């Protein structure tokens, strides 16, 4: 297993609406995901040579105030290969989301938790592809996201099976 990218809050990209706020928590850059509105952000990169095996997103986060309950992440991959028939200036082509399922938050607010989301639906990503990774907190999922208050995303590690 190899780390291919570490995606930070300051390098995130945002949709036109419903995106996490880029903010500082104890001077640490974070993305603040709301507890009731599903918010999304993206990271763009070029798939590196040698990319192989199962791809995984490892999300590091803390909770602002919650000490119980669960959160759920949804991670989607958009991989565009040279000469693909995708009109990038007008359309998105994310594959089906990969859901983390219900993740129990740490019992103390501010304590870090790291969640591994296997990217089973990886849009056929291969070396050289233009890639976007989409990360959401599934805040409107009343079953799997029950924790109150903001979630602060610290970073996302993108791994493959090398």
């Amino acid at each position, binding site marked *: 297993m190899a780390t291919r990218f570490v995606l930070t809050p300051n390098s995130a990209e945002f949709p036109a609406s419903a995106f996490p706020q880029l903010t500082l*928590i104890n001077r640490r850059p974070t993305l*603040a995901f*709301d*507890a*009731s*509105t599903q918010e999304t952000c993206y990271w763009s990169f070029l798939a590196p040579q040698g990319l192989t095996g199962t791809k995984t997103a490892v999300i590091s986060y803390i909770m*602002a*105030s*919650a*000490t*119980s*309950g669960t959160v759920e992440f949804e991670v989607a991959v958009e991989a565009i290969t040279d000469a693909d028939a995708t009109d990038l200036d007008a359309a998105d082509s994310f594959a089906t989301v990969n859901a983390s399922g219900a993740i129990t938050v740490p019992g103390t*607010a*501010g304590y870090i938790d790291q969640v591994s989301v296997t990217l089973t639906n990886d849009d056929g990503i291969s070396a050289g592809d233009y890639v976007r990774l989409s990360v959401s907190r599934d805040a409107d999922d*009343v079953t799997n*996201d*029950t*924790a*109150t*208050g*903001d979630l602060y995303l610290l970073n996302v590690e993108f791994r493959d099976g090398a």
Partner: protein
Amino acid sequence: MAVLPDSDRLRIYRGLMRYWSSLREGVSGILKTDLKAAVDAADQWVEDNSVSYNNALPATFRTNATASQKSILLVAVVLMRFNLDMLKRIFGEVD
């Protein structure tokens, strides 16, 4: 006055979570469903006890104050007891 529509109760619920998140403070050990149930219960309590509150006010004030003025009076007393900083933000200063 009837209880608040659920859309307004949700505005309070979302607002409380955002406010407490900004303070890095919350109610330990509760879930989102617990908070929403508490908002619902508080609104129902206001509905059930509004006549009692009104009758508790001195007659001169009761007959001359508007519902809005009576509500801010109640909020001010509760905040003075439990959250002076919030009361100062409403009034500017409490001396």
